[in-house]
């Protein structure tokens, strides 16, 4: 087995006097699909944001592919180039077409030739089943379509790690399935993924690990089916039964 792609060691994140992540430690190996679940406000999204330096940290250490992640260092760009991030609100660039959204960063950040990137982008649009929407602007697309463009955008840079921050929470129920289907394909390709989600069924089917977080700490970290069948902590049991209805 190869070494971990991501190592997080006693990570502490505070906003002012509020502690969001409280000495969190975990590591992720290539090919793992880690689903983070837990009540809102327990630091799941913040954790992802720390991993690519969108948030600075107050204690501990994060290493991505052996390299220390420091939000304020110039080296952070090298880390971000290898991590794809998908946001709850999609954050597509509204002044660019779907294709241009996907092509921009590989061209201006990675310095690739536009022609080659466009060819690759077309393949990605096939993968997210949006070949017919390539020239549409974000405002002309449904939420589910926008999120799939956002996934294509993150894939265009050939990332080593994909991070999904509640990717389906802002979507209409009928478009959630399209996005989850694309994510499932990515997992089957063997991509390394961190997914913050409330879609327990998806986490159970696709995840290789389920991490239950509460108050900035990892409460349980087990294979999803084990955790769902028999949560070992009372806190996880209550939460899981509440969201499964």
């Amino acid at each position: 087995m190869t070494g971990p792609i991501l190592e997080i060691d006693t990570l502490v994140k505070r906003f002012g006097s509020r502690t969001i992540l409280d000495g969190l430690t975990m590591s992720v190996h290539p090919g793992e699909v880690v689903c983070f679940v837990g009540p809102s406000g327990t630091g799941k999204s913040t954790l992802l944001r720390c991993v690519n330096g969108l948030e600075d940290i107050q204690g501990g250490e994060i290493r991505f592919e052996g390299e220390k992640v420091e939000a304020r260092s110039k080296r952070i760009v090298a880390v971000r180039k290898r991590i794809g991030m998908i946001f709850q609100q999609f954050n597509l660039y509204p002044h660019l077409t779907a294709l241009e959204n996907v092509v921009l960063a590989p061209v201006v950040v990675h310095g690739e030739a536009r022609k080659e990137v466009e060819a690759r982008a077309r393949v990605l649009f096939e993968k997210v089943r949006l070949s017919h929407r390539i020239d549409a602007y974000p405002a002309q697309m449904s939420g589910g379509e926008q999120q799939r463009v956002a996934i294509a955008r993150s894939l265009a840079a050939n990332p080593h790690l994909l991070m999904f921050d509640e990717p389906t929470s802002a979507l209409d129920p009928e478009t959630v399935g399209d996005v989850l289907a694309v994510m499932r394909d990515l997992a089957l390709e063997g991509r390394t993924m961190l997914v913050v989600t409330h879609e327990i069924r998806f986490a159970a089917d696709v995840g290789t690990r389920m991490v239950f977080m509460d108050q900035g700490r990892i409460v349980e970290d087990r294979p999803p089916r084990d955790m769902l069948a028999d949560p070992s902590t009372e806190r996880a049991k209550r939460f899981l039964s509440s969201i499964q209805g």
Partner: protein
Amino acid sequence: MQYTFALRTIYPYLGTLWQAALVTLYLSLLGIAISLVIGAGVAVMRRSRSMPVRFLGAAYVEVMRNTPLLVILYIVYFALPQTGLRLSSFTAALIGLSLNSAGYMAEILRAGLIAIPHGQREAAASQGMSGLQAFRYIVFPQVIRIVYAPLGNQFIAVILASSLASVIAVEDVASWMQTIGSTSFRFFETFVVAAGVYLVLCQSVNLGRIAIGRALFKHLRSAR
């Protein structure tokens, strides 16, 4: 007594009117361009992380918005020479007009910058863009679109405000109006013609702006 309105009485002065219109146009367009550049700088200052820089930017805006252009023109043209800085009336008018308009431009551009959701900068950062790249490819194009219509208002305001330059001896359309009115005694006609010239100048600049906007944002309905 009856006044007979007769436009043909001012035909002899149309040659000088053409010259005057060019001066107004030249002064206005330069003023618009310079105040856009200063305004952009001030808008960026107002969003700086440094408190003193933000304060300086805010102070500039408030001083320029809360003093009459007339007074600014007097200071630049009549008061500055006392310190040894002697300027031609055109240069003085251009400086005063640009400084004044920059206060408004800054606020328009700042509103545009504020309107860009934080998620846009975050998405750009997460893709590995530098601050400069995010500005160039993500923020700036969106800001331009947002401020395009309000900028049009300010462009027109600058053209109209340029008429004050006549009080410091710039030979623009307003100055032509006063001179020709009092030499020909055809006040009514000169005033109406001057008003028409300003109308045409403003509309030309505005239509030019809209045409450029159509080309820039050709796919978008909100282009106007």
